[in-house]
């Protein structure tokens, strides 16, 4: 049975730091609850849990968790997480990042952490804007959007982060909005359990800096009605990994609707497994050589 919010709050959050800094209507608070429910369902030991983040609104999340937290530098969360996880594989490492933090200043660390297949879970809160600095365009802002730094409209193509992760070789990728509570919790659980880098992209409203809608209700309608599930969209198609049109590549939309769903779920050895095998082999070789010499 699902636990009461109060009970979870006492166990998993630093209540002396509440309320959070997040604005009314922000989706990050919901994501905090999804993560709490996921780690509670998995019964993860809080002593072995490390939240790592970069800079931005979503990167303020680790402060509120009763667990280890590292609020690092803009874009560098994945590089820190790599060092942390590699030297202590027993830790559960969860990275909170945003679209600017991950896909602009931190893009190379994102792709390389995927390439190495470090066993961490990356949760990207994609609100398509730089919320904390007041609403400049981010790499996921749609073309045509008016922002503080595109006062005459944005003429740059935007990234589809989930497809980018998939193309880079991530073993688990899913994409939801903050309105998809159950799916998000399930995806986070799957991501944590997955051996290797799991990427979960969550479309989240920023009513302060990215005012798509005046009325907060409209975000909910948009997220629930203007989305299309990736697996359904590609049902009966012979191949789901080839981009069908420019929309998918650049705006993460299919036939005008936001793509959501599980994008990838595959198995390949994670970094630690391969490193352990290598270590065992070379140490054996070392002693064999020594005994030959002696």
């Amino acid at each position, binding site marked *: 049975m699902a636990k009461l919010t109060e009970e979870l709050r006492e166990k998993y959050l*630093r209540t002396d*730091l509440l309320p959070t800094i997040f604005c009314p209507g922000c989706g990050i608070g919901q994501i905090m609850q999804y993560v709490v429910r996921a780690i509670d369902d998995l019964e993860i030991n*809080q*002593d*072995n849990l*490390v939240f*790592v983040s970069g800079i931005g609104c979503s990167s303020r999340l*680790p*402060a509120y968790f*009763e*667990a*280890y*937290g*590292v*609020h*690092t*530098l803009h874009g*560098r969360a994945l*590089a*820190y*997480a*790599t*060092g*942390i996880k*590699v*030297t*202590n594989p*027993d*830790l559960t490492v969860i990275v909170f990042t945003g679209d600017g933090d991950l896909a602009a200043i931190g893009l*190379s*660390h994102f792709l*390389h952490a995927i390439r190495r297949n470090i066993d961490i879970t990356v949760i990207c809160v994609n609100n398509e804007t730089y919320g904390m600095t007041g609403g400049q365009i981010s790499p996921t802002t749609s073309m045509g959007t008016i922002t503080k730094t595109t006062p005459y409209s944005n003429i740059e193509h935007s990234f589809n982060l989930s497809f980018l992760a998939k193309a880079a070789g991530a073993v688990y990728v899913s994409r939801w909005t903050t309105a998809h509570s159950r799916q998000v919790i399930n995806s986070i659980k799957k991501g944590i359990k997955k051996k290797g880098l799991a990427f979960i992209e969550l479309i989240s409203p920023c009513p302060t800096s990215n005012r798509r809608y005046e009325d907060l209700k409209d975000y909910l309608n948009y997220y629930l009605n203007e989305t299309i599930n990736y697996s359904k969209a590609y049902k009966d198609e012979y191949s789901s990994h080839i981009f069908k049109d420019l929309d998918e590549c650049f705006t993460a939309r299919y036939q005008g609707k936001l793509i959501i769903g599980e994008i990838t779920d595959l198995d390949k050895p994670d970094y630690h497994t391969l*490193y352990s095998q*290598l*270590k*065992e082999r*070379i*140490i*054996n070789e*070392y*002693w064999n050589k020594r005994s030959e010499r002696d």
Partner: protein
Amino acid sequence: MKEIQVDDLLEPKIKFATGNEAIVYGALLANCRFFAGYPITPASEILEMMAKYLPLLKGGYFLQMEDEIASIAAIIGASWNNYRTMTATSGPGFSLMQENIGFACMTETPCVIVDVQRSGPSTGQPTKPAQGDIMEVRWGTHGDHNIIALYPNGVQESLWMTIRAFNLADKYRVPVIIISDAAIAHMREKLVIPNQDEVDIIKRIPVTIEKPKYHPFRTGYTHPTKVPEMDTFGKKYHTYLTGLTHDWKAHPETDDAEVHEKLVRRFYEKIEDNKDDIITYQEEYLENADIVIVSYGIASRVIKTAIEMAREQGYRVGHFRLITIWPFPAEEILDLSLEINKFIVVEMNLGQLYHSVVEYSNGNCQVDKLFSIGGKIPTPKDILKVIKKRIL
């Protein structure tokens, strides 16, 4: 599986080795078990040798990262697993690391960064020695902070200094920078490698207090210094780290001047209070000297010959070699300035530590200089010329 010992790995114990190699041996003997780095001339040998040795050792991990920023980020993160961690680079990479060095200062994370200097600015002369990063080492990252930086002038000293760098990093919870240069990095000298049991390791002080009373940045739980005890991931204390100004509970506090001042002043004081432990230097021919040459690193290797030449001609010249560059030996320079007529600062840049010598000699004596750039190590004859110059 039987564990491989560092002692076995580093045989034979007497080698004809380079400065870069000596740094690797020192790091392994100091129990450094995580290295993350990125290739760059003239520091790449450190990266390559770490790649060779670390996977053989128990708990040893090596990563070649995607850039220098990722390299230092990885070693700062790993340090919190109670690992001794290191990265090595040269000017261009060191510039990229600056923001993260500030994060290590702010979160009081021990780590060791090697900067093998080459000629700059920018890409400059990758294979040529220089001493142009001295002020960047001190002030490269933004904001008020304190730093420890050591600079060897030979291969044997590179080994012992690396061990000391790890001890200082853990003792004071600061990033420690080993400054080297392309000449020391690549020259070969006789190196005697000590056994593991001849190496003193000063461990960081762990948190032992019961959890409800623990606050990550409170000092003085178990010993009366301004260095807080250090937590490790995977324990019960659940430390939170942030680059934001934080109070002793590690809670971000970005509006309160008092909290900020208390925190940042402590960063200064934990170093300043222990200057005697940190500052090291070498004095030669100082008795009866009225001219003292101030130098460090590769430039200091030619001073002795210059002094011998000058003394034969009747000049009373001595030598003050900085081994610890930062914190600067201000009191020693001030004391000397009261007894002599002239300092001559010899360095391979266009005047960096020169300004510190001017500052701390406080007008008590003349300060002359010999600057040499472009990879040219000053010769004893060049120095003799400056010694013989009439005092201004």
